[in-house]
Protein backbone atom coordinates (compact mmCIF):
# COMPACT_ATOMS: atom_id res chain seq x y z
CA UNK A 1 0.00 0.00 0.00
CA UNK A 2 2.74 2.30 1.09
CA UNK A 3 4.79 1.78 -1.99
CA UNK A 4 1.68 2.40 -4.10
CA UNK A 5 1.20 5.84 -2.60
CA UNK A 6 4.87 6.58 -3.03
CA UNK A 7 4.67 5.45 -6.62
CA UNK A 8 1.60 7.57 -7.19
CA UNK A 9 3.30 10.65 -5.85
CA UNK A 10 6.35 9.95 -7.95
CA UNK A 11 4.05 9.52 -10.93
CA UNK A 12 2.33 12.82 -10.26
CA UNK A 13 5.64 14.64 -10.06
CA UNK A 14 6.97 13.09 -13.24
CA UNK A 15 3.59 13.57 -14.86
CA UNK A 16 3.69 17.25 -14.10
CA UNK A 17 6.86 17.51 -16.13
CA UNK A 18 5.37 15.41 -18.91
CA UNK A 19 2.42 17.76 -18.87
CA UNK A 20 4.68 20.79 -19.01
CA UNK A 21 6.38 19.42 -22.11
CA UNK A 22 3.01 18.52 -23.57
CA UNK A 23 1.78 22.08 -23.01
CA UNK A 24 4.67 23.35 -25.10
CA UNK A 25 3.68 20.93 -27.84
CA UNK A 26 0.02 21.81 -27.46
CA UNK A 27 0.84 25.43 -28.17
CA UNK A 28 2.71 24.57 -31.33
CA UNK A 29 0.29 21.90 -32.49
CA UNK A 30 -2.86 23.62 -31.32
CA UNK A 31 -2.17 27.18 -32.39
CA UNK A 32 0.18 26.88 -35.34
CA UNK A 33 -1.16 23.48 -36.41
CA UNK A 34 2.38 22.28 -36.80
CA UNK A 35 2.86 18.59 -36.14
CA UNK A 36 6.30 18.92 -34.68
CA UNK A 37 7.89 15.47 -34.67
CA UNK A 38 11.17 17.14 -33.78
CA UNK A 39 9.78 18.23 -30.43
CA UNK A 40 11.50 15.50 -28.48
CA UNK A 41 14.75 16.05 -30.31
CA UNK A 42 14.64 19.72 -29.33
CA UNK A 43 14.19 18.68 -25.71
CA UNK A 44 17.22 16.46 -26.12
CA UNK A 45 19.18 19.47 -27.41
CA UNK A 46 18.12 21.40 -24.31
CA UNK A 47 19.24 18.62 -22.00
CA UNK A 48 22.64 18.33 -23.66
CA UNK A 49 23.00 22.09 -23.49
CA UNK A 50 22.42 22.05 -19.75
CA UNK A 51 24.79 19.10 -19.38
CA UNK A 52 27.62 20.86 -21.15
CA UNK A 53 26.98 24.16 -19.37
CA UNK A 54 27.39 22.35 -16.08
CA UNK A 55 30.48 20.52 -17.21
CA UNK A 56 32.22 23.47 -18.81
CA UNK A 57 30.98 26.48 -16.87
CA UNK A 58 30.05 24.76 -13.64
CA UNK A 59 26.65 26.46 -13.63
CA UNK A 60 23.93 24.64 -11.78
CA UNK A 61 21.12 23.35 -14.00
CA UNK A 62 18.39 25.39 -12.33
CA UNK A 63 20.42 28.54 -12.68
CA UNK A 64 21.27 27.59 -16.23
CA UNK A 65 17.54 27.26 -16.96
CA UNK A 66 17.32 30.80 -18.24
CA UNK A 67 20.34 30.25 -20.45
CA UNK A 68 18.85 27.04 -21.79
CA UNK A 69 15.53 28.73 -22.38
CA UNK A 70 17.19 31.53 -24.31
CA UNK A 71 19.29 29.11 -26.32
CA UNK A 72 16.28 27.02 -27.21
CA UNK A 73 14.30 30.12 -28.06
CA UNK A 74 16.83 31.12 -30.68
CA UNK A 75 17.29 27.56 -31.84
CA UNK A 76 13.55 27.21 -32.28
CA UNK A 77 13.22 30.57 -33.93
CA UNK A 78 15.87 29.60 -36.47
CA UNK A 79 14.15 26.28 -37.01
CA UNK A 80 10.76 27.83 -37.58
CA UNK A 81 12.00 30.65 -39.72
CA UNK A 82 14.15 28.67 -42.11
CA UNK A 83 12.40 25.38 -42.40
CA UNK A 84 8.81 25.52 -41.36
CA UNK A 85 7.57 28.94 -42.31
CA UNK A 86 8.37 28.71 -46.05
CA UNK A 87 6.27 25.58 -46.15
CA UNK A 88 3.40 27.10 -44.22
CA UNK A 89 3.34 29.99 -46.61
CA UNK A 90 2.79 27.64 -49.51
CA UNK A 91 -0.43 26.83 -47.74
CA UNK A 92 -2.62 25.91 -50.63
CA UNK A 93 -0.38 23.13 -51.80
CA UNK A 94 0.78 21.93 -48.45
CA UNK A 95 -0.52 18.68 -47.16
CA UNK A 96 -0.29 18.21 -43.40
CA UNK A 97 2.03 15.35 -44.19
CA UNK A 98 4.64 17.76 -45.52
CA UNK A 99 5.17 19.40 -42.15
CA UNK A 100 5.15 16.04 -40.37
CA UNK A 101 7.81 14.72 -42.70
CA UNK A 102 9.82 17.91 -42.56
CA UNK A 103 9.97 17.80 -38.79
CA UNK A 104 10.66 14.05 -38.93
CA UNK A 105 13.62 14.78 -41.15
CA UNK A 106 14.82 17.46 -38.75
CA UNK A 107 14.41 15.00 -35.89
CA UNK A 108 16.50 12.41 -37.72
CA UNK A 109 19.20 14.98 -38.30
CA UNK A 110 19.27 16.37 -34.77
CA UNK A 111 19.30 12.95 -33.18
CA UNK A 112 22.03 11.51 -35.32
CA UNK A 113 24.22 14.58 -35.25
CA UNK A 114 24.02 14.36 -31.47
CA UNK A 115 24.86 10.67 -31.72
CA UNK A 116 27.86 11.49 -33.84
CA UNK A 117 29.09 14.28 -31.60
CA UNK A 118 28.35 12.84 -28.19
CA UNK A 119 28.19 9.11 -28.70
CA UNK A 120 25.60 6.68 -27.45
CA UNK A 121 26.57 6.71 -23.80
CA UNK A 122 23.96 7.53 -21.22
CA UNK A 123 24.93 10.59 -19.30
CA UNK A 124 23.72 12.04 -16.07
CA UNK A 125 24.02 15.49 -14.73
CA UNK A 126 25.53 15.25 -11.26
CA UNK A 127 24.63 17.90 -8.78
CA UNK A 128 24.48 18.06 -5.00
CA UNK A 129 20.84 17.12 -5.06
CA UNK A 130 20.94 14.41 -7.70
CA UNK A 131 19.59 11.21 -6.24
CA UNK A 132 18.63 12.85 -2.99
CA UNK A 133 15.16 12.59 -1.62
CA UNK A 134 13.11 14.10 1.11
CA UNK A 135 11.37 11.95 3.56
CA UNK A 136 7.75 12.92 4.03
CA UNK A 137 5.68 10.80 6.32
CA UNK A 138 8.06 7.95 5.72
CA UNK A 139 7.79 8.18 1.94
CA UNK A 140 10.63 9.14 -0.32
CA UNK A 141 10.13 12.11 -2.58
CA UNK A 142 12.93 12.63 -5.04
CA UNK A 143 14.16 16.19 -4.69
CA UNK A 144 14.86 17.20 -8.28
CA UNK A 145 11.49 15.80 -9.35
CA UNK A 146 9.70 17.89 -6.75
CA UNK A 147 11.60 21.02 -7.65
CA UNK A 148 11.04 20.47 -11.35
CA UNK A 149 7.35 19.82 -10.73
CA UNK A 150 6.85 23.02 -8.75
CA UNK A 151 8.81 25.15 -11.17
CA UNK A 152 6.80 23.72 -14.08
CA UNK A 153 3.52 24.60 -12.40
CA UNK A 154 4.69 28.13 -11.76
CA UNK A 155 5.73 28.56 -15.37
CA UNK A 156 2.45 27.19 -16.69
CA UNK A 157 0.60 29.57 -14.40
CA UNK A 158 2.66 32.45 -15.79
CA UNK A 159 1.91 31.25 -19.31
CA UNK A 160 -1.81 31.26 -18.63
CA UNK A 161 -1.55 34.80 -17.30
CA UNK A 162 0.34 35.84 -20.39
CA UNK A 163 -2.23 34.31 -22.68
CA UNK A 164 -5.11 35.94 -20.90
CA UNK A 165 -3.82 39.34 -19.99
CA UNK A 166 -1.49 40.50 -22.71
CA UNK A 167 -2.42 41.64 -26.19
CA UNK A 168 -0.11 39.17 -27.78
CA UNK A 169 -1.57 36.43 -25.65
CA UNK A 170 -5.03 37.32 -26.84
CA UNK A 171 -3.84 37.35 -30.42
CA UNK A 172 -2.51 33.87 -29.89
CA UNK A 173 -5.78 32.62 -28.47
CA UNK A 174 -7.73 34.24 -31.28
CA UNK A 175 -5.54 32.67 -33.94
CA UNK A 176 -5.86 29.27 -32.35
CA UNK A 177 -9.64 29.46 -32.39
CA UNK A 178 -10.18 30.82 -35.86
CA UNK A 179 -7.31 31.63 -38.12
CA UNK A 180 -9.38 33.39 -40.78
CA UNK A 181 -11.24 35.56 -38.34
CA UNK A 182 -8.02 36.52 -36.61
CA UNK A 183 -6.52 37.52 -39.91
CA UNK A 184 -9.54 39.62 -40.74
CA UNK A 185 -9.04 41.41 -37.47
CA UNK A 186 -5.57 42.42 -38.47
CA UNK A 187 -3.58 39.77 -36.65
CA UNK A 188 -0.52 38.61 -38.54
CA UNK A 189 -0.95 34.92 -38.05
CA UNK A 190 2.54 34.06 -39.32
CA UNK A 191 3.99 36.26 -36.62
CA UNK A 192 1.83 34.44 -34.11
CA UNK A 193 3.16 31.08 -35.28
CA UNK A 194 6.73 32.30 -34.90
CA UNK A 195 6.08 33.51 -31.40
CA UNK A 196 4.20 30.41 -30.38
CA UNK A 197 6.96 28.21 -31.70
CA UNK A 198 9.43 30.34 -29.79
CA UNK A 199 7.43 30.04 -26.58
CA UNK A 200 7.15 26.31 -27.12
CA UNK A 201 10.87 25.79 -27.57
CA UNK A 202 11.67 28.14 -24.70
CA UNK A 203 9.55 25.93 -22.50
CA UNK A 204 11.57 22.98 -23.74
CA UNK A 205 14.69 24.83 -22.62
CA UNK A 206 13.26 25.04 -19.12
CA UNK A 207 12.10 21.45 -19.27
CA UNK A 208 15.59 20.37 -20.23
CA UNK A 209 17.07 21.95 -17.17
CA UNK A 210 14.33 20.58 -14.90
CA UNK A 211 14.79 17.05 -16.21
CA UNK A 212 18.54 16.82 -16.34
CA UNK A 213 19.24 16.44 -12.60
CA UNK A 214 17.38 13.16 -12.51
CA UNK A 215 16.72 11.94 -16.04
CA UNK A 216 19.39 10.24 -18.09
CA UNK A 217 20.57 12.05 -21.19
CA UNK A 218 20.98 10.27 -24.50
CA UNK A 219 20.61 11.35 -28.15
CA UNK A 220 17.59 9.12 -28.68
CA UNK A 221 15.48 10.15 -25.70
CA UNK A 222 13.63 12.56 -27.95
CA UNK A 223 11.78 9.64 -29.51
CA UNK A 224 10.21 8.61 -26.24
CA UNK A 225 9.21 12.12 -25.31
CA UNK A 226 7.76 13.11 -28.65
CA UNK A 227 5.38 10.18 -28.84
CA UNK A 228 4.42 10.52 -25.21
CA UNK A 229 3.84 14.24 -25.64
CA UNK A 230 1.50 13.73 -28.56
CA UNK A 231 -0.37 11.10 -26.63
CA UNK A 232 -0.73 13.48 -23.71
CA UNK A 233 -1.80 16.37 -25.90
CA UNK A 234 -4.50 14.26 -27.48
CA UNK A 235 -5.62 12.78 -24.17
CA UNK A 236 -5.78 16.18 -22.60
CA UNK A 237 -7.56 17.74 -25.49
CA UNK A 238 -6.06 19.97 -28.09
CA UNK A 239 -6.18 23.61 -27.12
CA UNK A 240 -6.43 23.00 -23.40
CA UNK A 241 -3.44 23.80 -21.22
CA UNK A 242 -4.96 22.41 -18.08
CA UNK A 243 -6.00 19.36 -20.06
CA UNK A 244 -2.41 18.73 -21.12
CA UNK A 245 -1.22 19.07 -17.54
CA UNK A 246 -3.92 16.80 -16.25
CA UNK A 247 -3.31 14.20 -18.93
CA UNK A 248 0.42 14.41 -18.28
CA UNK A 249 -0.11 13.65 -14.63
CA UNK A 250 -2.43 10.78 -15.47
CA UNK A 251 0.15 9.29 -17.82
CA UNK A 252 2.85 9.76 -15.20
CA UNK A 253 0.76 7.97 -12.61
CA UNK A 254 -0.14 5.11 -14.96
CA UNK A 255 3.54 4.68 -15.74
CA UNK A 256 4.54 4.76 -12.14
CA UNK A 257 1.85 2.43 -10.86
CA UNK A 258 2.21 0.20 -13.88
CA UNK A 259 5.88 -0.25 -13.13
CA UNK A 260 4.85 -1.87 -9.86
CA UNK A 261 2.98 -4.62 -11.67
CA UNK A 262 4.53 -5.03 -15.08
CA UNK A 263 7.73 -4.13 -16.86
CA UNK A 264 8.13 -0.58 -18.11
CA UNK A 265 7.85 -1.53 -21.76
CA UNK A 266 4.39 -2.93 -21.22
CA UNK A 267 3.23 0.24 -19.50
CA UNK A 268 4.30 2.07 -22.62
CA UNK A 269 2.13 -0.11 -24.79
CA UNK A 270 -0.70 0.33 -22.31
CA UNK A 271 -0.41 4.06 -22.77
CA UNK A 272 -0.46 3.67 -26.55
CA UNK A 273 -3.54 1.48 -26.34
CA UNK A 274 -5.31 4.08 -24.23
CA UNK A 275 -4.19 6.65 -26.79
CA UNK A 276 -5.74 4.80 -29.69
CA UNK A 277 -8.90 4.17 -27.72
CA UNK A 278 -9.20 7.87 -26.97
CA UNK A 279 -8.56 8.88 -30.55
CA UNK A 280 -11.44 6.75 -31.64
CA UNK A 281 -13.92 7.30 -28.86
CA UNK A 282 -13.25 10.81 -27.68
CA UNK A 283 -10.82 12.55 -30.01
CA UNK A 284 -11.41 15.85 -28.31
CA UNK A 285 -9.70 14.47 -25.25
CA UNK A 286 -10.58 15.01 -21.63
CA UNK A 287 -10.88 18.77 -21.63
CA UNK A 288 -10.50 19.69 -25.26
CA UNK A 289 -12.54 22.28 -27.10
CA UNK A 290 -15.03 20.68 -29.41
CA UNK A 291 -14.68 21.39 -33.11
CA UNK A 292 -17.26 20.54 -35.73
Amino acid sequence: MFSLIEATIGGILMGGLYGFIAVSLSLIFGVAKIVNFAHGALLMVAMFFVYWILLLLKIDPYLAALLAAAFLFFFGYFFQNFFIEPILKREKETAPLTVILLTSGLMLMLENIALLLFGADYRMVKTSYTGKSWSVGGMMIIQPRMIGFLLSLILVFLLELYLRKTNLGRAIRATSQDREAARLMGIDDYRVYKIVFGIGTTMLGFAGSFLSPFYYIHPAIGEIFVLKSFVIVVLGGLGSISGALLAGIIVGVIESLGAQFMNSAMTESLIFIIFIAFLVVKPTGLLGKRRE
Partner: protein
Amino acid sequence: MAWKRNLPCLALLIAILFPIFVRDPYFLHAAIMILFSAYLASSWNIIGGLAGQHSFGHSAFLGIGAYSSTLLLLYLNIPPFLGMILGGMIASLVSVGIGYPCFKLRGPYFALSTLAFTEIFRIVVTTTETIGGIDLRGAAGILIPLRKGNSFLNFQFADKTFYYYIILAMLFLILFIYKRMEKSRLGIFLSAIRDNEEAARSLGISATRYKMIALIVSGFFGATAGTFYAQFFLYIEPILFSSALSIEILLVAIVGGAGTLTGPLIGALMLTPVSEMTRAYLGGTYAGVQLILYGAILVAVMMFAPQGIVPPLSRRYRSLFERRA
Protein backbone atom coordinates in the same frame (compact mmCIF):
# COMPACT_ATOMS: atom_id res chain seq x y z
CA MET B 1 12.07 9.34 -80.46
CA ALA B 2 10.85 5.83 -80.00
CA TRP B 3 13.52 5.10 -77.46
CA LYS B 4 11.97 7.56 -75.01
CA ARG B 5 8.73 5.64 -75.08
CA ASN B 6 10.58 2.44 -74.49
CA LEU B 7 12.46 3.73 -71.46
CA PRO B 8 10.70 1.32 -69.10
CA CYS B 9 11.53 -1.65 -71.33
CA LEU B 10 15.12 -0.52 -71.53
CA ALA B 11 15.26 -0.23 -67.76
CA LEU B 12 13.84 -3.71 -67.37
CA LEU B 13 16.38 -5.08 -69.82
CA ILE B 14 19.23 -3.46 -67.93
CA ALA B 15 17.86 -4.84 -64.70
CA ILE B 16 17.66 -8.35 -66.07
CA LEU B 17 21.15 -8.26 -67.52
CA PHE B 18 22.73 -6.54 -64.54
CA PRO B 19 23.94 -9.59 -62.58
CA ILE B 20 25.36 -11.12 -65.73
CA PHE B 21 27.69 -8.21 -66.30
CA VAL B 22 28.27 -7.08 -62.76
CA ARG B 23 29.77 -9.93 -60.77
CA ASP B 24 31.09 -8.07 -57.73
CA PRO B 25 29.10 -9.41 -54.75
CA TYR B 26 29.14 -5.99 -53.10
CA PHE B 27 27.32 -4.37 -56.00
CA LEU B 28 24.97 -7.30 -56.29
CA HIS B 29 24.07 -6.90 -52.62
CA ALA B 30 23.53 -3.19 -53.11
CA ALA B 31 21.31 -3.82 -56.12
CA ILE B 32 19.23 -6.31 -54.13
CA MET B 33 18.84 -3.70 -51.40
CA ILE B 34 17.70 -1.11 -53.90
CA LEU B 35 15.09 -3.44 -55.38
CA PHE B 36 13.99 -4.52 -51.91
CA SER B 37 13.58 -0.95 -50.76
CA ALA B 38 11.64 -0.14 -53.93
CA TYR B 39 9.37 -3.13 -53.35
CA LEU B 40 8.71 -2.23 -49.74
CA ALA B 41 8.08 1.41 -50.59
CA SER B 42 5.76 0.33 -53.41
CA SER B 43 3.72 -1.70 -50.96
CA TRP B 44 3.35 1.44 -48.83
CA ASN B 45 2.52 3.40 -51.94
CA ILE B 46 -0.75 1.52 -52.31
CA ILE B 47 -2.17 2.87 -49.06
CA GLY B 48 -0.03 5.96 -48.71
CA GLY B 49 0.26 7.16 -52.28
CA LEU B 50 -2.73 5.88 -54.21
CA ALA B 51 -5.22 6.07 -51.37
CA GLY B 52 -3.48 9.04 -49.82
CA GLN B 53 -3.67 7.61 -46.31
CA HIS B 54 -0.26 8.35 -44.91
CA SER B 55 0.40 5.41 -42.68
CA PHE B 56 3.31 5.72 -40.30
CA GLY B 57 2.96 2.11 -39.25
CA HIS B 58 3.94 0.16 -42.34
CA SER B 59 6.83 -1.59 -40.64
CA ALA B 60 4.20 -3.50 -38.67
CA PHE B 61 3.47 -5.50 -41.83
CA LEU B 62 7.14 -6.04 -42.52
CA GLY B 63 7.56 -7.42 -39.05
CA ILE B 64 4.43 -9.55 -39.18
CA GLY B 65 5.53 -11.09 -42.46
CA ALA B 66 9.04 -11.76 -41.24
CA TYR B 67 7.96 -13.28 -37.95
CA SER B 68 5.04 -15.25 -39.42
CA SER B 69 6.97 -17.04 -42.11
CA THR B 70 9.92 -17.63 -39.81
CA LEU B 71 7.85 -19.11 -37.00
CA LEU B 72 5.83 -21.19 -39.47
CA LEU B 73 9.11 -22.50 -40.82
CA LEU B 74 10.70 -23.24 -37.47
CA TYR B 75 7.68 -24.78 -35.78
CA LEU B 76 5.61 -26.29 -38.60
CA ASN B 77 8.28 -26.76 -41.24
CA ILE B 78 6.30 -24.79 -43.74
CA PRO B 79 8.43 -23.81 -46.75
CA PRO B 80 9.10 -20.07 -46.74
CA PHE B 81 7.51 -19.39 -50.12
CA LEU B 82 4.26 -20.75 -48.75
CA GLY B 83 4.96 -19.00 -45.48
CA MET B 84 5.23 -15.78 -47.45
CA ILE B 85 1.67 -16.12 -48.68
CA LEU B 86 0.39 -17.15 -45.27
CA GLY B 87 2.28 -14.28 -43.66
CA GLY B 88 0.68 -11.94 -46.16
CA MET B 89 -2.75 -13.22 -45.25
CA ILE B 90 -2.06 -12.84 -41.56
CA ALA B 91 -0.93 -9.27 -42.17
CA SER B 92 -4.10 -8.59 -44.13
CA LEU B 93 -6.16 -9.82 -41.23
CA VAL B 94 -4.25 -7.67 -38.77
CA SER B 95 -4.59 -4.69 -41.11
CA VAL B 96 -8.35 -4.86 -40.67
CA GLY B 97 -7.84 -4.57 -36.94
CA ILE B 98 -5.56 -1.60 -37.45
CA GLY B 99 -7.68 0.07 -40.09
CA TYR B 100 -10.92 -0.11 -38.18
CA PRO B 101 -9.96 2.38 -35.46
CA CYS B 102 -7.38 4.34 -37.44
CA PHE B 103 -9.56 5.15 -40.44
CA LYS B 104 -11.92 7.03 -38.19
CA LEU B 105 -9.16 9.60 -37.91
CA ARG B 106 -7.78 12.16 -40.27
CA GLY B 107 -4.46 13.80 -41.07
CA PRO B 108 -1.91 13.88 -38.27
CA TYR B 109 -4.16 11.87 -35.96
CA PHE B 110 -4.28 9.03 -38.44
CA ALA B 111 -0.50 9.15 -38.78
CA LEU B 112 -0.03 9.12 -35.03
CA SER B 113 -2.41 6.25 -34.46
CA THR B 114 -0.72 4.04 -37.06
CA LEU B 115 2.60 4.91 -35.48
CA ALA B 116 1.27 3.97 -32.07
CA PHE B 117 0.10 0.61 -33.42
CA THR B 118 3.44 -0.38 -34.81
CA GLU B 119 5.16 0.73 -31.63
CA ILE B 120 2.80 -1.45 -29.63
CA PHE B 121 3.77 -4.42 -31.79
CA ARG B 122 7.44 -3.64 -31.34
CA ILE B 123 7.11 -3.40 -27.59
CA VAL B 124 5.10 -6.59 -27.35
CA VAL B 125 7.55 -8.56 -29.49
CA THR B 126 10.56 -7.13 -27.68
CA THR B 127 9.31 -7.90 -24.20
CA THR B 128 7.60 -11.21 -24.83
CA GLU B 129 9.75 -14.27 -24.61
CA THR B 130 7.18 -16.92 -25.34
CA ILE B 131 3.56 -16.99 -26.34
CA GLY B 132 1.74 -20.26 -25.96
CA GLY B 133 4.87 -22.27 -26.34
CA ILE B 134 6.21 -20.28 -29.27
CA ASP B 135 9.51 -18.67 -28.51
CA LEU B 136 9.69 -15.11 -29.83
CA ARG B 137 13.09 -14.54 -28.30
CA GLY B 138 12.25 -10.92 -27.54
CA ALA B 139 14.96 -8.41 -28.23
CA ALA B 140 17.49 -11.10 -29.08
CA GLY B 141 15.74 -11.88 -32.30
CA ILE B 142 15.46 -15.13 -34.18
CA LEU B 143 18.11 -16.79 -36.28
CA ILE B 144 17.09 -18.89 -39.23
CA PRO B 145 19.21 -22.01 -39.59
CA LEU B 146 21.47 -21.82 -42.59
CA ARG B 147 20.96 -24.36 -45.33
CA LYS B 148 23.80 -24.83 -47.73
CA GLY B 149 23.46 -24.46 -51.46
CA ASN B 150 20.67 -23.04 -53.55
CA SER B 151 17.18 -24.19 -52.80
CA PHE B 152 13.80 -22.79 -53.71
CA LEU B 153 12.18 -25.09 -51.22
CA ASN B 154 14.20 -23.60 -48.40
CA PHE B 155 14.21 -20.15 -49.96
CA GLN B 156 17.91 -19.92 -49.28
CA PHE B 157 20.58 -19.40 -51.89
CA ALA B 158 24.32 -19.36 -51.53
CA ASP B 159 24.46 -17.60 -54.85
CA LYS B 160 22.96 -14.15 -54.28
CA THR B 161 21.94 -13.88 -57.93
CA PHE B 162 18.87 -15.96 -57.11
CA TYR B 163 17.76 -13.42 -54.55
CA TYR B 164 18.29 -10.68 -57.09
CA TYR B 165 16.01 -12.22 -59.67
CA ILE B 166 13.37 -13.09 -57.09
CA ILE B 167 13.14 -9.55 -55.77
CA LEU B 168 13.23 -8.23 -59.32
CA ALA B 169 10.28 -10.45 -60.20
CA MET B 170 8.45 -9.36 -57.05
CA LEU B 171 9.06 -5.72 -57.87
CA PHE B 172 7.82 -6.21 -61.40
CA LEU B 173 4.73 -7.91 -60.05
CA ILE B 174 3.87 -5.21 -57.56
CA LEU B 175 4.40 -2.44 -60.10
CA PHE B 176 2.18 -4.29 -62.53
CA ILE B 177 -0.50 -4.66 -59.89
CA TYR B 178 -0.19 -1.00 -58.91
CA LYS B 179 -0.59 0.11 -62.50
CA ARG B 180 -3.69 -2.04 -62.96
CA MET B 181 -5.12 -0.77 -59.70
CA GLU B 182 -4.57 2.87 -60.65
CA LYS B 183 -6.72 2.55 -63.74
CA SER B 184 -9.36 0.34 -62.22
CA ARG B 185 -12.57 1.41 -60.59
CA LEU B 186 -10.94 0.79 -57.20
CA GLY B 187 -8.00 2.98 -58.12
CA ILE B 188 -10.16 5.84 -59.30
CA PHE B 189 -12.14 5.63 -56.08
CA LEU B 190 -8.96 5.67 -54.02
CA SER B 191 -7.63 8.68 -55.92
CA ALA B 192 -10.93 10.46 -55.35
CA ILE B 193 -10.79 9.63 -51.65
CA ARG B 194 -7.24 10.87 -51.56
CA ASP B 195 -8.07 14.14 -53.29
CA ASN B 196 -11.22 14.88 -51.37
CA GLU B 197 -12.78 12.31 -49.11
CA GLU B 198 -15.86 14.35 -48.30
CA ALA B 199 -16.72 14.90 -51.95
CA ALA B 200 -16.10 11.24 -52.69
CA ARG B 201 -18.50 10.15 -49.99
CA SER B 202 -21.14 12.54 -51.19
CA LEU B 203 -20.90 10.87 -54.58
CA GLY B 204 -21.74 7.47 -53.23
CA ILE B 205 -18.31 6.07 -52.36
CA SER B 206 -18.00 4.19 -49.12
CA ALA B 207 -14.63 5.65 -48.18
CA THR B 208 -14.02 3.34 -45.26
CA ARG B 209 -14.56 0.21 -47.32
CA TYR B 210 -12.15 1.20 -50.06
CA LYS B 211 -9.49 2.50 -47.70
CA MET B 212 -9.66 -0.81 -45.94
CA ILE B 213 -9.23 -2.71 -49.19
CA ALA B 214 -6.17 -0.62 -49.99
CA LEU B 215 -4.74 -1.31 -46.55
CA ILE B 216 -5.35 -5.04 -46.86
CA VAL B 217 -3.52 -5.17 -50.18
CA SER B 218 -0.76 -2.94 -48.89
CA GLY B 219 -0.37 -5.08 -45.79
CA PHE B 220 -0.22 -8.28 -47.78
CA PHE B 221 2.66 -7.09 -49.92
CA GLY B 222 4.44 -5.44 -47.03
CA ALA B 223 4.43 -8.77 -45.25
CA THR B 224 5.84 -10.60 -48.27
CA ALA B 225 8.75 -8.17 -48.13
CA GLY B 226 9.23 -9.30 -44.55
CA THR B 227 9.62 -12.90 -45.59
CA PHE B 228 12.13 -11.95 -48.25
CA TYR B 229 14.05 -10.01 -45.63
CA ALA B 230 14.02 -12.94 -43.25
CA GLN B 231 15.24 -15.39 -45.85
CA PHE B 232 17.90 -13.02 -47.15
CA PHE B 233 19.44 -11.95 -43.85
CA LEU B 234 18.53 -15.12 -41.93
CA TYR B 235 17.98 -12.99 -38.84
CA ILE B 236 14.94 -11.08 -37.65
CA GLU B 237 14.47 -8.86 -34.63
CA PRO B 238 11.78 -6.63 -33.11
CA ILE B 239 13.35 -3.53 -34.60
CA LEU B 240 11.59 -4.52 -37.81
CA PHE B 241 8.46 -3.15 -36.12
CA SER B 242 9.95 0.20 -35.21
CA SER B 243 8.34 3.48 -36.14
CA ALA B 244 11.72 4.81 -37.29
CA LEU B 245 11.75 2.06 -39.93
CA SER B 246 8.21 3.03 -40.93
CA ILE B 247 9.43 6.54 -41.55
CA GLU B 248 12.34 5.25 -43.62
CA ILE B 249 9.96 3.22 -45.78
CA LEU B 250 7.60 6.05 -46.51
CA LEU B 251 10.54 8.38 -47.00
CA VAL B 252 11.61 6.35 -50.02
CA ALA B 253 8.16 6.60 -51.57
CA ILE B 254 7.75 10.28 -50.75
CA VAL B 255 11.15 11.34 -52.05
CA GLY B 256 10.48 9.53 -55.30
CA GLY B 257 6.89 10.61 -55.49
CA ALA B 258 4.00 9.11 -53.54
CA GLY B 259 1.06 8.18 -55.70
CA THR B 260 3.15 7.66 -58.81
CA LEU B 261 4.03 4.27 -60.24
CA THR B 262 7.77 4.74 -60.39
CA GLY B 263 8.17 7.06 -57.40
CA PRO B 264 9.19 4.35 -54.93
CA LEU B 265 11.69 2.92 -57.40
CA ILE B 266 13.28 6.30 -58.08
CA GLY B 267 13.33 7.02 -54.36
CA ALA B 268 15.07 3.71 -53.72
CA LEU B 269 17.58 4.40 -56.47
CA MET B 270 18.41 7.68 -54.81
CA LEU B 271 18.42 6.75 -51.17
CA THR B 272 19.68 3.19 -50.93
CA PRO B 273 23.11 3.94 -52.42
CA VAL B 274 23.43 6.69 -49.82
CA SER B 275 22.93 4.24 -47.01
CA GLU B 276 25.04 1.53 -48.59
CA MET B 277 27.92 3.87 -49.19
CA THR B 278 27.91 5.40 -45.74
CA ARG B 279 27.79 1.93 -44.30
CA ALA B 280 30.75 0.87 -46.41
CA TYR B 281 32.97 3.85 -45.81
CA LEU B 282 32.10 4.70 -42.27
CA GLY B 283 31.07 1.34 -40.97
CA GLY B 284 29.77 0.71 -37.51
CA THR B 285 31.44 3.63 -35.78
CA TYR B 286 29.35 6.18 -37.53
CA ALA B 287 26.13 4.24 -37.78
CA GLY B 288 24.01 7.32 -37.54
CA VAL B 289 25.55 9.23 -40.44
CA GLN B 290 23.29 7.69 -43.07
CA LEU B 291 20.32 8.86 -41.05
CA ILE B 292 21.66 12.39 -40.96
CA LEU B 293 21.76 12.30 -44.74
CA TYR B 294 18.31 10.72 -44.94
CA GLY B 295 17.01 13.45 -42.68
CA ALA B 296 18.65 16.14 -44.77
CA ILE B 297 17.24 14.69 -47.99
CA LEU B 298 13.80 14.48 -46.43
CA VAL B 299 13.98 18.11 -45.33
CA ALA B 300 15.24 19.23 -48.73
CA VAL B 301 12.55 17.32 -50.60
CA MET B 302 9.80 18.65 -48.36
CA MET B 303 11.01 22.19 -48.81
CA PHE B 304 11.65 22.16 -52.53
CA ALA B 305 9.79 19.26 -54.08
CA PRO B 306 7.10 18.02 -51.71
CA GLN B 307 5.49 15.98 -54.44
CA GLY B 308 8.69 14.04 -54.83
CA ILE B 309 11.10 13.77 -57.71
CA VAL B 310 8.88 12.00 -60.23
CA PRO B 311 5.96 14.42 -60.78
CA PRO B 312 8.03 17.42 -61.90
CA LEU B 313 10.31 15.11 -63.89
CA SER B 314 7.47 13.34 -65.61
CA ARG B 315 5.94 16.66 -66.55
CA ARG B 316 9.25 17.62 -68.16
CA TYR B 317 9.55 14.20 -69.75
CA ARG B 318 6.06 14.41 -71.15
CA SER B 319 6.46 17.93 -72.44
CA LEU B 320 9.73 17.02 -74.13
CA PHE B 321 8.01 14.03 -75.61
CA GLU B 322 5.03 16.01 -76.79
CA ARG B 323 7.06 18.77 -78.37
CA ARG B 324 8.93 16.38 -80.61
CA ALA B 325 5.96 14.22 -81.45
